[in-house]
């Protein structure tokens, strides 16, 4: 692998003379540029999706993991007493930073999306909700449940596990999907560059014959094609990446669209990730063209 990488670097920095041996124009040049550009553009979105879903999974995981809800269902005349007992118990529980009962207005806000703004919340037997914020390593849910059962019989602790796991699972699957898309894009680009390289080699059969007659070795001849295709793939992918980054930048903001798509994009060090796409395209082109060239030259001997 080190040898192959060394050859890659030497080829990029190397002698451009072999390049001149192959006619500079041809539809394979445009095909390679277009393919690399289009694939890089698509890869940019897949990369953005991958990073966004990763962030989403982390955020959901962190937010839901740091909060819990205590629900108190009791006869109306016991609700206040049980709420006070629960808060007192929580305040003395290690790992609990704060515990706060949601106000009637806050509960109304929670129910509004489902029942509308005019819900008569005061006349409904709605359980009291206490928001728990954790600190440090968090509390021991088994111990807390045991204590609540003894001291606040109407309390049910929801540590959000049943919400968190499916959400994180969904985000992880989305990320897997995005990574799979990137791999497929890379494979498709490799296949298309291989076909373009083979077409170029076939179109230049006479050039190859002349070079062989004057003593050119296979690696020299292949180098003429490899270097050219690698540079084209890099240039095409760089252009496609720039357009892709602009497209990601121009995605609607949170205020306009809302929802999941607002998180699609790059943040912080994530903006460096797109720089890998042209390099990856060049590496793929190098190995795809090299393999295609050497295989074709073997069959043409």
């Amino acid at each position, binding site marked *: 692998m080190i040898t192959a990488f060394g050859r890659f670097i030497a080829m990029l920095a190397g002698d451009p003379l072999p390049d001149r041996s192959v*006619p500079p124009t041809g539809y394979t040049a445009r095909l390679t540029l277009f393919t690399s550009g289009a694939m890089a553009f698509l890869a940019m979105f897949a990369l953005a999706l991958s990073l966004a879903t990763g962030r989403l999974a982390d955020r959901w995981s962190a937010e839901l993991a740091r909060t819990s809800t205590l629900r108190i269902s009791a006869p109306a005349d016991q609700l206040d007493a049980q709420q006070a007992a629960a808060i007192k118990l929580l305040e003395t529980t290690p790992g609990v930073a704060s515990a706060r009962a949601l106000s009637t207005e806050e509960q109304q806000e929670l129910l509004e999306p489902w029942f509308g703004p005019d819900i008569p919340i005061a006349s409904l037997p709605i359980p009291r909700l206490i928001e728990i914020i954790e600190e440090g390593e968090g509390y021991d849910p088994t111990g807390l449940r045991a204590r609540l059962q003894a001291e606040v019989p109407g309390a049910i602790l929801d540590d959000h596990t049943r919400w968190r796991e499916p959400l994180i699972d969904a985000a992880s699957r989305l990320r897997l999907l995005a990574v799979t898309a990137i791999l497929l894009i890379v494979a498709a680009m490799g296949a298309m560059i291989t076909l373009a390289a083979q077409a170029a080699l076939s179109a230049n059969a006479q050039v190859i014959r002349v*070079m062989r*007659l*004057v*003593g050119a*070795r296979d690696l020299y001849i292949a180098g003429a094609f490899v270097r050219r295709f690698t540079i084209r793939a890099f240039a095409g992918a760089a252009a496609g990446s720039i357009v892709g980054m602009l497209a990601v930048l121009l995605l609607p903001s949170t205020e306009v669209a809302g929802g999941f798509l607002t998180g699609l994009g790059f943040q912080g060090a994530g903006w460096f990730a797109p720089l890998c796409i042209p390099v990856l395209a060049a590496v793929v082109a190098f190995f795809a063209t090299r393999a295609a060239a050497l295989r074709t030259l073997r069959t043409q*001997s």
Partner: protein
Amino acid sequence: MIELDRVAYSYGGGELFSDVSLNLAPGSFQFLTGPSGAGKTTLLKLCYGELRATSGHVRLFGQNAREMGRDEVALARRKIGVVHQDCQFLDHLPVAENIALPLTVAGRAQEAGDYLEDLLRWVGLAHQAGQLPPELSGGERQRAALARAVIISPDVIIADEPTGNIDWEMSQRLLRLLIELNKMGKAVLIATHDMNLIRTAKTQVQSRVLRLNNRRLQAAGVDL
């Protein structure tokens, strides 16, 4: 340097020639004649490893051609200067770059320098150095092919009808160059129909004339 030992070559189900033995030893100067279609060009291709014999042995600089890999053949060709009948240029490269191509592919492009200019002057192409091969006349292409064949100072020079498209004066200059190179120890093999060229050469250099006819290679008399 190049030896053919009881070589046969078949093509399309028929035998083109057989039992052909030929030795391109250092300092040898040989002409190959014969009717069109007798297989002269094919025989030359066996000598520089472009084709492989159906039977018999071809040795290129001591190596059995049948056992040589493509890269070994490529290295052997750097010791053989070939003037092809159809010249074989890279049409998108200027004449000067085409002539320097054997040095370029051998990684010795920097050696061309003044020598390339002298060579271009000698073959009368100093003013055509920047032109593309399709812009040259037949004779100019032939001279460029000769320049390309000798630029790498090969041990063996093989020419296929080198005077086919050039005038008498240029063919004499070409012959003088080949004789000079031969005196330096290079082996020369020329396939030609040009009897005047052979007769002139025989007055200037110890040479051998071989005739490929009826699938056999035989020594021909001076009267031809």
